[in-house]
């Protein structure tokens, strides 16, 4: 019924005219276009229409926070740099607080933390601290936002090698609490958690655990559909599948993993073609790993690694720049090319340090 309601509110808007509610009509229709219908540019156009109504109709200000979380959390990241969504999300949060739309304010805050984490800012950035403060000082807290933020804070702690406090929930604890509540679908929360877990396993090179989790986790892409973690999941799904294919003993196993990886890459290629600027470097990294799996020549593999590193650096995804360097180092290590291996390893350590992932830097230093 959800899509039918969207069509209904949209239909009335087109038939009878616009008002504040039309913001919801355009933005929710934008979600459908950006996600399931795969037309992010048209989704962006709907979001723009809502933004125009918000800026020109004084009576529509009550929709500011609600529209901000939908536009930035579900629509804009498909066609805009992730970092550009942060300021509007903060504004949306503030608008929600002042208008009394606390639900939307909390969603804005949640998406801001999610996007800040994925956008490659230093893990100890003030942006995260600011979001935590805003959440703590919010007089209308709720368990959903609390758990949502905890997922990302936990990931930061693990990457920064910060000990968990006594009674602090780990991922399992978060999921258990979520399943007991009903504020946000436990399935949705599970998808957010699993995406982060997959990312952590990949960063720490724990490919076996990553593979096991990938086999048991729900189809995050199907569940989340439009938010950025669905995109992120697709990238790590591809990477983990290629790694699993590389380490598979049987040909059939390898073929199955490769097929799944190709499917992920297909999505990513299409999204890039439709204007997604946040995953171009991811595709190059997947291409490098796939080329390696296919046994192509050294030059081609390094070219893909290099372009992944360059694009990640250009788009300020420092964590992916680090990962690309690390995987390149690993590749040259397997070829016994020590100079190339050390060159990329040095770069990986530098990038992880810049990102603030102390635990990962320690891991690489120990391996070195």
């Amino acid at each position: 019924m959800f899509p039918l309601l969207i069509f209904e509110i949209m239909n009335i808007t087109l038939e009878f005219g616009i008002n504040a509610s039309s913001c919801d009509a355009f933005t929710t229709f934008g979600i459908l276009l950006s996600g399931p219908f795969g037309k992010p540019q048209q989704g962006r156009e709907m979001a723009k229409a809502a933004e125009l109504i918000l800026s020109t109709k004084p009576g529509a200000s009550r929709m500011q926070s609600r529209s901000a979380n939908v536009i930035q959390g579900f629509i804009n990241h498909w066609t805009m740099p992730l970092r550009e969504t942060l300021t509007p999300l903060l504004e949306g949060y503030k608008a929600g607080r002042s208008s009394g739309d606390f639900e939307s304010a909390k969603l804005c805050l949640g998406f801001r933390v999610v996007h800040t984490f994925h956008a490659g800012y230093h893990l100890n950035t003030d942006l995260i601290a600011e979001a935590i403060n805003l959440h703590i000082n919010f007089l209308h807290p709720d368990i959903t936002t609390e758990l949502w933020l905890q997922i990302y804070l936990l990931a930061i702690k693990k990457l920064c090698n910060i000990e968990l406090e006594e009674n602090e929930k780990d991922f399992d604890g978060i999921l258990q609490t979520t399943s007991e509540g009903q504020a946000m679908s436990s399935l949705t929360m599970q998808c957010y958690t699993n995406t982060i877990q997959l990312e952590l396993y990949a960063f720490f090179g724990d490919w076996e655990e990553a593979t096991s989790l990938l086999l048991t986790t729900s189809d995050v892409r199907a569940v989340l559909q439009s938010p950025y973690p669905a995109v992120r999941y697709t990238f790590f799904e591809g990477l983990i599948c290629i790694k699993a294919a590389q380490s598979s003993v049987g040909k059939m196993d390898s073929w199955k993993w490769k097929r799944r990886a190709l499917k992920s890459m297909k999505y990513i290629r299409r999204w890039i073609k439709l204007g997604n600027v946040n995953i171009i470097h991811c595709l190059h990294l997947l291409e490098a790993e796939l080329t390696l799996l296919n046994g192509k020549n050294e030059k081609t593999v390094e070219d893909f690694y290099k372009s992944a590193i360059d694009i990640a650096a250009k788009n300020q995804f420092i964590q992916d720049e680090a990962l690309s360097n690390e995987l390149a180092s690993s590749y040259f290590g397997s070829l016994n090319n020590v100079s190339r291996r050390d060159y990329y390893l040095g770069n990986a350590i530098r990038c992880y340090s810049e990102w603030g992932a102390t635990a990962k830097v320690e891991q690489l230093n120990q391996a070195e």
Partner: protein
Amino acid sequence: MSSTEKAVVFGQTMAATAMSSDERDEKHDGTEEAVVSTGQKTIRAATITTNDTQSSCQQDSTTCSSYTDHDTLGLHDDDKPNKGGVLPDATASIEGGVSVITTPEFFPVNHVKIMPSVNEKVIVDNVIDNSTRSGSTPSNSTGTAGAYYSKNSKSTNKNDNNASSTTATTSASSSTSKTKLIASAKHNLQAGKSALEKSDFDTAADYFKAGRKQLNDITYWDDDEVRPILLELCSEGAHTCYITGEHDITNELIDQVLHHGNTIQEKFRVYEVKMLTVMATGNYQESLSLGLDVRKQLGLSTPSYNRVTNNKVVSTMMILKRYGEISRKLDNRTAEELANLPELQDERIIMGQRMLELLLTSCYQVSIVSIQSLFMLISIICNFLSHITIIPLSICCLSGPTNLVPSAYL
């Protein structure tokens, strides 16, 4: 026992109300303020500060029980006017023609401060904490001029509609006419709305509460003049209390409006609040049913109403069909063209749209798993359609100018 009284002149014309002793404002420092006005005439405000902690002042008549003799204006027989008015530190003097004794037509009380005893202070603090929250005291400067605010200073009963809280009204109420009450309630309503615009929800809630107290007579619901004000005070009050987390009061006000409201238009605002409160408890199915029912009462059809009520699943083909229709209606219009569509004027449709907003939230939560499955199915179908070169005519017909076949997930 020592006491002082101050007379202050406000050189402004304000609308009128009288206020009972239980409607005094309370502050954390233990002082209490009350605002009382006369009719359309210049107000003379008096501030009383009583240091005697056991005195029980009835500021509307400026009478303290500790005094035995006083006149009708609440002045004590032994009070002598001197320079500066009744009180030594009054801001205007007798020479200025301002004295409640020399100019008795002036209504004296406007501002009362009472220092309560230690024991009383505890009670007062409890009342503030429980029923109004600290720092929420509105002042005249917060609202528009003439906005009146009052609060029960002694009762610990949180129920602002409890008749007992108003039975303690004193002799000032005798000078209060219905017109004055209405005017004052209107001012409180406006002041509440102003506070809402400033995101001062606690203050707004207090203004609405004060307004409701002034119209705290059940017969007013049948009064055509008072009824709209009461409806608005209760409806806006319900929404504000929802925001401030006073759920008991919210529900009480919702019930009041639903009980006394005659039309769906009158009840609409609290239906919105009711949906929000139901959603806040996680009962999205009930919220969904309520929203659908309101739309029905508005005379608006809702897609798949029967399917929802009968718990039937909406088919993917139906979704694609509707998507095609909307795509055709969109007609490739740009964002600017869409934002410049004529403004919706029909109040009934506007209400229906607002219901749809809330329904979208509820529906998303109710059927999140089925939505996700459905979206996945749509994606798969779209993926399939994009791979076949000859699309069946029936499906082509669904496609509008924006082309039905989604191009992602290829």
